[in-house]
Each structure stands twice: as C-alpha cells, then as structure tokens.
C-alpha cells in the first residue's frame, strides 16, 4: 500500500538527513528497520494514535531549537551509589562516565561495534514485535539510525543501579539513542535515567527479561522548557519475572512516552507508571500497550498528570488479553489534576479481552484540588499555597508508590516539591 503523499514527503525529508551507521552486528537490523520506517512512513495527524499529539516537530528534518536550562539544581540521583554513564547531546562522555564495569552486569556500547554480539538477538526484535497492531515509526527510525546506547546484560544481582545521565547543551541537538537490556534468570538491576538529553531526543529501550528476572526503571526527564522527546520502551517478560517502570516528566514542550509490554511467561508482573507536571506550553503524552499472552500475570498502568496554565496531557492506554491468558489481572488508571480552567486532559483507555477468566479495570478522571481537603489543611494553619502543594504531591502519590525503593521515591518527590515551590514564589 502506498503512503499518502504528505506522509511520504515528510518521511523522505527526514530520512534524507540521516545516514545509516556502519553497524557491524546491528547492520542488518538497521537496514530492516529502515525498510519498516520507509514502508509505514512517519506519523501523521490522521493516524489513530496521533490524534491528540501533533507529530510534525518530531518528524521535522531538523530539531526545533531548545535552549539548555541552567537549572541551578543538584543533579537527581547524585547522592546515590550508582554506576554513572553520561551522554551529552547524545554523545557518550567517557570523562564524565564511570568505568563500564560492575559485578552482576556486563555493559557495552552500541557504537563500539563488532561482528557478533548477544544484543543482536534483541536489537530491533522487540521493537518489531511492538509494531503490531499499532505502528510506532519513530521507534523503527531509532533502530535504524541510533548513534549509540548501552547494551546491558544483567547476569546476577547488580551491585548498584546504572544511572544514565543525559546532558543537553547544544540548542539544536538531535539525539537518537537505543539501549538494549537483557536480564538473565534470577538476575536483578535498577536503571536510572535523568536529564533532557537534547533539543530533540528519540530514545528506545528494549528490555528482555528472562524467567524470574527483575528490572526496575526510574526515569526523570529533564526540565528544559523547549525540549522535545519521543521515547519507546519495549519490554518482554518471562515466567515469574517483574518489571517496574516509573517516569517523571517536568516541563518540556512535547513529550511522547510509549511503553509496549508483552507477557510471554506465566505469573509475571509489570507496572508502568508516570507522573508529569506541566505548565503553559507543555504537551505530554503517555501511550501504553500491554499484551497479556500468558496465564496469571499482573499489569498496572498508573499515570498522573498535574496541569496548569493551558498545559495538555494525553493518555492512551490499552490492555490486550489474548485468548488463553486466563487469570490476568490488569489495572489501568489515568488521572489529571487541573490547576486551572485552561488546561486539558485527553484520555483514551482501551480494553480488548479474549479470555473469559480475567479481572481488568480501568479508570480515568479529571478534576481540581478538593476544596474540603484544602479547608481542612488550612484550618490547621497550613498556608493555602503549601496546602495546595501537599494535595498535589498526594495526587501523584499513587504513581510514585510504584517505585519500590523508598530513597528513589523521595528523590522524585523532592523534584516535584521544588517544581511546585518555584511556581509559588
């Protein structure tokens, strides 16, 4: 089927500026991905899953300019004992990074190519699986053109978290990074991510979690106001494995975070959560697709958006329960706290169920801060502004609670408190 002319033009214009990296072991995966993106074309405003989010600035040949923010804030996770890896505008910074070695984990870089690597069984493979039934052209584009990324093989219990810090310096940087994570049976790792990365950032993470493996993921997308990001997280879960992912987004003019989770083994658990704080010219989109193709798995999607000053939040979440995926426990909640009348929340929850013994629920709400609660707090002497902040923190609590580690939870809440305090000052 041929693409509509506009779509074809936009796709060609974008691809023209890009060169396929040499690739080594990833070369064939990259060529296949290029074929995929050429065939499907970049997203258009008429695509079913792009109705609420305009893809044009993500498609554009050049990244729209975005000033790097001088944050005057200590970097998040800075106090934690972790293995730090730094990318500046998408380029690996060896000087700022730790030695890529740690007990329980083997780490390599995508850009350091060889002819053979374990990652070739995963690179682009989970992304390809995730293209059906919903196309994700930016993910295919990423697989084809990613300049670098980490290849993380978790072989045991990792001694400490890996922290990937994305620094943004150049006003028109356009970064494409692709990470592959392979968690062996019984192994466990926490991956932390932070920072705005670039003026425009396209990120893909493919995570293949073997039976009884555990992967924790906590991401704090940076505060730069004009930055744009399109990210994809593809996770495949084996029997009795667990995957917990949480993303905090504050600011950014456009963010599209997609998570695509597939249960292939029984008794596994996946929790995908996120909170975002949006002010003014802010558009944030969470698009999640969870496929249950195994018995007795539990999935949770918990998304909270705090919006003010005309900010826009989007949630598109789907739970697909395939025939035979009995005893599925699927939960999905998306809520927005609208701090004024100008902000907007658009939600599209979807359930598609082909098994008859499952428990699936979804809910979506939009509302203001509860006046009775505010009165109660103020009646005890808490100033109204602080009471509103407490209620806002309380609102996102259900999502933040999805992070297992208490210290990490506190790190994130601190960021949100600081964000709120800046707006009260």
């Amino acid at each position: 089927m041929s693409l509509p002319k506009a779509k074809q033009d936009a796709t060609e214009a974008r691809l023209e500026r890009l060169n396929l990296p040499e690739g080594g072991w990833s070369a064939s995966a990259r060529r296949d991905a290029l074929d995929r993106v050429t065939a499907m074309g970049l997203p258009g405003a008429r695509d079913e899953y792009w109705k609420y989010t305009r893809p044009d600035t993500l498609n554009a040949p050049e990244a729209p300019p975005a000033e790097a923010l001088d944050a005057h804030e200590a970097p998040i996770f800075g106090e934690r004992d972790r293995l730090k890896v730094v990318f500046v505008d998408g380029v690996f910074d060896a000087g700022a990074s730790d030695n890529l070695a740690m007990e329980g984990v083997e780490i390599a870089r995508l850009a350091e190519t060889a002819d053979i690597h374990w990652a070739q069984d995963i690179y682009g493979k989970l992304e390809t699986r995730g293209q059906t039934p919903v196309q994700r052209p930016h993910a295919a584009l990423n697989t084809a053109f990613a300049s670098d990324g980490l290849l993380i093989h978790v072989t045991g219990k990792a001694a400490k978290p890996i922290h990937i810090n994305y620094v943004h310096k150049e006003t028109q940087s356009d970064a494409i990074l692709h990470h592959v994570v392979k968690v062996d049976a019984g192994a466990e790792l926490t991956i932390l991510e932070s920072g705005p990365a670039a003026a425009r950032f396209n990120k893909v993470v493919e995570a293949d979690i073997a039976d009884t493996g555990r992967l924790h993921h906590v991401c704090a997308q940076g505060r730069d106001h004009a930055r744009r990001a399109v990210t994809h997280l593809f996770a495949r879960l084996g029997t009795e494995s667990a995957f917990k992912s949480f993303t905090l987004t504050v600011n950014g003019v456009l963010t599209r975070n997609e998570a695509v989770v597939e249960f292939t083994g029984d008794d596994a658990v996946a929790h995908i959560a996120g909170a975002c704080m949006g002010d003014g010219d802010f558009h944030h989109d969470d698009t999640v697709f969870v496929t249950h193709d195994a018995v007795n798995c539990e999935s949770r999607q918990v998304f909270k958006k705090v919006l003010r000053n005309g900010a826009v939040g989007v949630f598109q979440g789907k739970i697909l329960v395939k025939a035979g995926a009995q005893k599925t426990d699927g939960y999905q909640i998306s809520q927005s706290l609208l701090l004024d009348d100008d902000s907007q929340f658009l939600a599209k929850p979807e359930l598609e169920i082909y098994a008859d013994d499952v428990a699936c629920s979804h809910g979506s709400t939009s509302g203001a801060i509860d006046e009775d609660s505010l009165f109660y707090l103020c009646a005890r002497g808490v100033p109204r502004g602080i009471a509103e902040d407490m209620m806002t923190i309380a609102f996102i609590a259900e999502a933040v609670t999805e992070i297992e580690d208490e210290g990490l939870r506190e790190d994130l809440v601190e960021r949100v408190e600081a964000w709120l305090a800046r707006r009260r000052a």
Partner: protein
Amino acid sequence: MLEIKNLHVKLEEEDKQILKGVDLTVEAGKVHAIMGPNGSGKSTLSYVLSGRDGYEVTEGSATLMGEDILDMEVEERAAAGLFLAFQYPVEIPGVGNMTFLRTAVNAQRKARGQEEMSAAEFLKVIREKAKSLKIDAEMLKRPVNVGFSGGEKKRNEILQMAMLEPKMCILDETDSGLDVDAMKLVADGVNALRDEGRAFLVITHYQRLLDHIKPDVVHIMANGRIIKTGGPELALEVENHGYADLLAEEV
C-alpha cells in the same frame, strides 16, 4: 477571648439567612456549650468562625482576643489561636498524618514569629500526646484520617488540638458517632487541655458529652440566634424535656 456581636450570615449560593444576630462572649478559661435543634445554625457558626467558603457575613462582628477574625484567611485564624474540631474530619489520601501535623505546627509557629520545631522534638512530643489518646504509631504514619474509624478520627482531631495548642477551641459535635468509651477518651483529652488561657466552645446535641466535659455556661441556639443562656442545669433541662418548651418560650 471570643466575642461575637449581632452576627448575621447567609449562604452565598442560596441567599438564605442562617444566622440572624448571634451574640456570644466566651471568656478565657471557660467552657461554653451550645445546644440546639437540627438546622439551628450551630455548625454554620463554627464554619463561619473558622473561615469556610460559601458563607457571607452580612452584619455583625467576631473577634478573637480583640482581633477581627472575619477578615483573616483560614490559616491566619488558626495561627491566631482558633481551632475547629470537625464534625466530619476529612480523609486525605496521600498526605501523611505526621507530615501534615508537623507542617501545620511549624506553619503556625512561623506565622507567630516563633522558632520551628525540629523533627526530633516534634516526634517526641507527638508520641507522648498520642499515647494518652491511645493513638498508636501506625495511625500516625497513615494518610490523614484514611481508613480511620469514627472514633479514631475524633481522637485524631483532639491530637491535632493538643499539638497545635490553640487558644480558642471549637468542638463541632465531637461526640457524634462515638461509643461511650471513645467519648470518655475524647473528653479526657479535652479536659487535659483546659487551662486559664484557653477557652472552649462545645457544640453538641446531647447532654452526654457535657457529663464528661463540664461546661461553665450553656447556650441554646434556635433559628439562627442564641435564645437562652444558663448554667449546666440548662443542658439537663433540654435532656429531660427537649427543645419544645424553650422554643415556645421564645415565641
């Protein structure tokens, strides 16, 4: 302590007059009780004094230790020493009881120009006070009032009062929904706070609570006004004969 003069209040939305000239003076060190039939305006009085939205004062005044409180924000009234124990304490998921109380205590201290309480000191004081109200550590950690029984919520109100050490305490039907033992516990908590510098206004339907918290003065409120004021015997009279006789007298 608290001086209310000719207070007229209407509901903002319905243009309905609720208080029609309340006059009430509560002296420091005293416990005043207000009794009255449903719809007489008792709860409205407590809400207006604490600053809840939705009410409009059309006439009259209310001062706390000489200061006009009707012009103050809700939190300023609290910092000035006013405390309302809610009839229906609000459940606030996601806000920890301890965090809430410490924020409140320190916000009030800050507003009064006092030094803030350290986390350690706060913890020591709250543990002590919670113990006497039979509030366990687990309850303190939970979100504000979430999953609390009726009795636990009311005890939590008294704990807040004990921590905030207000000057003027208004108890809005604190006895509602309490069994005999819980009422005793709450009353003991209130009695422990009675002193020369503090006053109480106890709003209740029943004499029961006043057996435990002995009032100095009892007021009967009906149709938006105080229609009769007397000693503790007035409460007994209501208990025995209902409001009918008193209301008939007023007409």
